[in-house]
C-alpha cells in the first residue's frame, strides 16, 4: 500500500501521460468529442425521470426528480466507467506490459484521472439544473471532496482486484458489466434510501457505495452532512478492500508480462 502511494507521486508524470493518452485517444475522430461524457448521465437521467418518477411514482425526498437522479448519476457513471475501463486496463495495454517495465498501477490511476475529467464535464449540466430549480449550494457541499476521495479509493481497490484477475481470467470481462448493473440497483441512485424497509437497511448499508451516493445528495441538494455512522462503515470497508486488493495486485503484477 505504501509502495503504491510512493509510486503515485514518483510516477505522477507517467500517470498524467497515460491519462492524457486515454482522454485524447477517446475523443479523436469523434464529432461530439468530450460531449459524450455528458450525454451518458444525461440520457440516463431522462430515462430514469420518465420511468421511475413519471410512471412508477418513486419518491425523491421532496427533491425535483431530475436533480435527484442526476446528482447520483454523474458519480455513478464515474464509478461504473472506471470499473469497466480499469478492469480491462492491463489487457488493453498488453503490448506495453509485455515489453516495458513501469509500475502497472499507474494505468489504473490514469483511468481514474480520466474519469474525473468526464465527471467534471458532466457536472456542468448539474450546475445548470441547480440554477433551473433554484437550489443553492451551502457549505455542506464541501462534503463532496472527502466523499469523492473515498469513492475513488474504493474504485481503485475494486479495479486493482478485477484488473489483476482479468489478466488471468477473461471471464471477469464478461461478468462484470452485469455485476455493476445490479450494483447500481443496490445503491440509492434511482430511489432514496428512505424507501428501504428498516429491517433491511443494516444489510443494505453494507454496500459501501450506498452511503457515498446518499452523501452526495445530502451535501449538494439538502445542504446536510452525510449519515456519518453508515459512512464510517463504508470507510472501513473501503480501507479493507483497497488494502487487500492492492497487495493482491502487487503480487500478481510480477507475472503479468508472462501470462497476459
Amino acid at each position: 500500500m505504501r509502495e503504491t502511494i510512493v509510486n503515485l507521486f514518483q510516477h505522477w508524470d507517467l500517470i498524467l501521460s497515460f491519462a492524457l493518452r486515454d482522454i485524447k485517444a477517446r475523443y479523436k475522430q469523434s464529432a461530439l468529442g468530450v460531449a459524450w461524457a455528458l450525454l451518458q448521465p444525461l440520457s440516463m437521467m431522462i430515462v430514469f425521470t420518465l420511468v421511475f418518477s413519471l410512471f412508477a411514482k418513486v419518491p425523491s425526498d421532496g427533491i425535483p426528480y431530475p436533480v435527484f437522479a442526476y446528482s447520483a448519476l454523474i458519480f455513478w457513471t464515474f464509478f461504473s466507467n472506471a470499473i469497466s475501463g480499469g478492469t480491462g486496463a492491463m489487457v488493453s495495454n498488453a503490448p506495453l506490459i509485455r515489453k516495458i517495465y513501469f509500475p502497472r498501477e499507474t494505468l489504473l490511476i490514469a483511468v481514474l484521472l480520466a474519469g474525473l475529467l468526464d465527471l467534471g464535464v458532466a457536472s456542468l449540466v448539474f450546475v445548470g439544473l441547480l440554477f433551473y430549480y433554484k437550489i443553492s449550494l451551502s457549505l455542506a457541499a464541501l462534503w463532496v471532496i472527502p466523499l469523492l476521495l473515498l469513492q475513488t479509493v474504493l474504485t481503485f481497490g475494486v479495479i486493482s482486484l478485477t484488473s489483476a484477475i482479468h489478466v488471468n481470467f477473461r471471464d471477469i470481462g464478461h461478468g462484470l458489466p452485469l455485476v455493476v448493473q445490479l450494483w447500481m440497483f443496490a445503491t440509492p441512485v434511482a430511489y432514496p434510501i428512505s424507501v428501504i424497509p428498516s429491517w433491511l437497511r443494516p444489510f443494505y448499508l453494507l454496500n459501501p457505495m450506498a452511503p457515498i451516493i446518499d452523501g452526495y445528495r445530502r451535501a449538494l441538494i439538502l445542504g446536510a452532512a452525510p449519515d456519518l455512522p453508515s459512512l464510517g462503515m463504508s470507510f472501513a470497508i473501503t480501507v479493507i478492500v483497497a488494502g487487500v486488493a492492492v497487495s493482491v495486485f502487487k503480487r500478481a503484477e510480477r507475472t503479468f508480462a508472462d501470462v497476459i
Partner: protein
Amino acid sequence: MSDTAIELSGVSKRYRLRRGWQVTSLKDEVGRLTARFLGRAVQPREEFWALRDVSFSLTRGEVLGLIGMNGAGKSTLLKILSRVTVPTTGSFVTNGRLGSLIEIGAGFHPDLTGRENIFLNGSIMGMTRREVQRKFDQIVAFAEVERFIDTPIKYYSSGMQMRLGFAVAAHTDPEILLIDEILAVGDASFQAKCLNKLAELKDQDKTIILVSHNLTNITEHAKTVLWIDHGTIRMFGESDAVVDAYLEHVSADMSAEDSHHEARDSSGDRPISLLDVAMADESEQPQNRFDREDTVVIDLTYSASRPIPGVVFGVSVHDLHGYDLGGVVTDPDSIKVTAPVDHAVLRLTLSPLLFNKGAYTLDVYVLDPATRRFYDLRRRALRLLVDGHRAALRESTGYVFYPHRWEQSK
C-alpha cells in the same frame, strides 16, 4: 557509489506452458483447485526453464555482448534485467537508470500526434515531462520528423515510427543500456546515426548489453561476451575466445541437425525434386568449415520426371537470425532440364568465399522462373561456418568481405 553496474546471482526463470491460443478459463482453474482440495492428483502443468542459475556481474562502463541460438534465453534475460518480468528464483541488482532499445516505440498510440507520443513514450521510459520538454527539439531533429510532428503517427511510415521510437529511447540518458539488434534498423544514414550514438554512449562510460546474431558486430563493440545455451551460461569471458568457442559449437551442432525439407508445391505436380545437397572443399572432402577466401563446392542432386521448359536453381545465404543475405541463381538459358532424369548433379563453386567470420545457413531451391513457384525448397539445407586465419583479420565489417586494397599517397 559502487562500481558494479549489474549483478545477477542464481537467476532462473520458469514458464508454465499453456496450450493453444486460449488463456486458461476460470472453469479449468476451478476444476484444478477442486481436485487439489479433494486430495486428487492434479496433472502437473508442463514447465519450461528459460533460464537456469545465471550469475555474472558487470562493472560500470563495460560493454557486454550476449550471444546464443534462438530460444537460448537471451530475450528472457533482457526481460528480467529490464524488470518486465521477475526471476522465479535468484536475485539481481542494477545500479543506475536502465534504458532499453529493445522495444522501441512500444508505447506509441496510433491516434496521437508525434508530439504527444514523444511525451507519452518518454514518460513510459522513465523521463519526467519536463525532461522530455527539455530534450524535445533534439529528439525531433534526431528522428527527422519535424514536418510531421503534429500529425497522428498512424499516418507515419514504419521507418518514421522506428526513427521516432529510437530517438526517444536514445535520449532517455540511461546509465545501463540494453540493445537488441538495433543496428539493423532504418536506412543507411539513420544506421550511421545510431552507431554514432552508440559510440557516444560508450564514451560516456555507459554500461551496455548488446544482443546480436552478427558476431562481427559483437566482437567490434564488446570486450566481454556471454554465451547462453539452453538457459544456462555456456561461457563468459573475453569476446574473441567466447565467439570462437561459440562458432566451434555451432558447426558441430550443424552437422548433427537435419535440414528442413519444405516443398511449396501442394498440387502434387512436382516435376523436379532435390534429392541431396552436399558441401565440400576443393579436394572434394565433405566440409562445412572454411576460412575466408577458401573455395566451397556445393553439389545439388536432383531428379526430374519430365523435361521442364524453364527452371532456376538457387542457393541463398542467411544469418543465424534468418535474414536473407543474398544468394546465387542459375540462368535458365544455360542450365536446363531437357529430359527426365533419375539422378543428376549440379555443381556450384563459390570461389573465393567472401563472407566474414560467422555462422550462416543456406537455403537451396528449384523454382519456375515464370510463376516464381517453388518446385522444391530446402530451408537450412546447409550450414556454413567461416572461421580461420584470414577470417580472424579485422579488416572488414558486417557479413560480406570486400576484396580491397588501401593506398596512401606520400
